[in-house]
């Protein structure tokens, strides 16, 4: 665990000491703020809980993009700058490398979404919402972010180009997000499976409505662990490659 935290700490400092981390943070907050004002608050009168639900819906879209941008560099950049060899020649397992990288991106992601708290707080000016609904929504965002980071981290393990890792990660996340559409045009049991696998649709909706469903928590944790394990295997496979 000490090594995982060591790697995570170095990565986290790298986010805060480079321009790209702040750019991702600023763009996320700007876009979330705009979407909050235009769509969530809007011009028509709404119940406060509907405003909050819409806020989490639009924030989740931006969170997907932010998580991909944060994770795409994690291993691809190390390959590009040839620093991965430092980790690979140290007495460190590939699992420790992957989890360290993952935790750093997740910590930065948590800071990023936490900075958007002023938006749901603004609802209190003209309305009332339950604090547990806000907390549940943020937990949903964090779990969605963890799953997305793990997918993009796998893409980053496959590529030595950050752009390519970002594109591959985005395609994988998009395919998993629109799996519910495929569920509509397929028969059971495939349609049930597709609907269950969809990254956003049924699983995130419950969080945005303030409902904490254990099934959805398990889904996001399962997706996260699965893709992180795939990333570990991908990193291990370097031993056989040129």
């Amino acid at each position, binding site marked *: 665990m*000490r*090594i995982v935290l*060591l*790697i995570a700490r*170095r990565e986290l*400092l*790298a986010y805060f*000491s*480079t321009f790209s981390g702040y750019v991702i943070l600023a763009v996320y907050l700007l876009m979330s703020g705009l979407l909050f004002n235009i769509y969530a608050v809007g011009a028509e009168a709404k119940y406060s809980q509907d405003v909050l639900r819409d806020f989490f819906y639009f924030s989740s879209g931006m969170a997907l993009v932010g998580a991909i941008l944060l994770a795409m560099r994690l291993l691809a950049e190390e390959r590009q*700058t*040839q*620093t*991965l*060899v*430092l*980790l*690979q*020649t*140290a*007495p*460190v*397992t590939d699992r420790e490398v992957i989890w360290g990288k993952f935790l750093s991106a997740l910590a930065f992601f948590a800071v990023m979404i936490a900075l958007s708290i002023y938006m749901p707080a603004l609802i209190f000016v003209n309305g009332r919402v339950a604090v547990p609904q806000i907390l549940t929504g943020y937990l949903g965002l964090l779990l969605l972010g963890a799953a997305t980071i793990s997918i993009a981290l796998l893409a980053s393990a496959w590529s030595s180009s950050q752009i390519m890792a970002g594109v591959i990660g985005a395609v994988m996340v998009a395919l998993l997000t629109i799996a519910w559409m495929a569920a509509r045009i397929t028969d059971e049991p495939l349609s049930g499976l597709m609907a269950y696998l969809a990254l956003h649709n049924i699983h995130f909706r419950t969080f945005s409505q303030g409902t904490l469903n254990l099934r959805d928590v398990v889904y996001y944790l399962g997706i996260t662990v699965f893709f992180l394990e795939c990333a570990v295997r991908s990193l291990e496979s*370097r*031993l*056989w490659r*040129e």
Partner: protein
Amino acid sequence: MIRVSGLSKTFGNRQALDHCTFEVPAGQIVGLVGKNGAGKTTALRILSNQLLPSAGEVWIDGRALGAEGLAIRGRIGVLPETPPLYPEMTVTAYLRFAARLRRVNEAEVEPRVESVIQRTGLATVAQQRTGTLARGYRQRVGIAQAIVHDPPVVLLDEPMTGLDPLQIVQIRDLILQLKPRHTVLFSSHILSEVTQICDRVILLDQGKVVAEGTEEHLRKDLLQRRSIAVLVRGTGEALRKALAGLTGCEVHPRAAQAGDEPGCARAEISSGSDAREEVGRRCVEAGLGLLELRDERHGLEALMLQLLERGQAA
């Protein structure tokens, strides 16, 4: 300290290493020399546990690579061709990170970092970001991270590439200081560069160890040794019998090469003098069809001279 036996590595159809066998005794500096593509980096990547061999065995500090790969990583320090530096970190922060990554006890991290900064002459740039350092200093930081955990074995891949003459002298002195505390194996494609600081040299060509020893021994051996390749129509056993007892010669059976006809056998004869006449006579007397008798001395000579010439030009 390092023992390599029958090490081979194949990438698709390309044989990067071909049954390499060599040893590096404790406390010595040994150079791995060869042209570009000779297999030096592949050998160092296998030794540093970044790549699995296709065949063969490696022991480092008495531990077998593979079974104890992770434990071995803690016993070696590695400087790849490009120093693995994080540009946003200061030299001190980077070395602290490298020490902790190599599982140095927390109480020992600061003294080790301080000591390695002094040893590698980095005191003046200790608080500077590694991304802003000149090439020579980057190389020093690369060496510092390789020795910060005080490993018994240090592997350096082309540590002097891209440096100016003054920097080469400084890095050469730095490598010399690693002895005898560390056993050093480093690669280079410039023989003269290696012979100035190495106790021994291992010469690699096309993935094979073609010679090894001190510079003096190599010069004598490569320039005097003759190697004769013979190809006959007949069995390997018949060829071995025909050549048995050749004075001052060593006979090594060789595998058939692409294009050899079926029912043929090959051998290589090492000798201090020209034994072609005697080899040819014995083959004919044994009733073997002599298809090829070739003096390969010039192949080794050319390799050595090519490496020497490159060194003189650099």
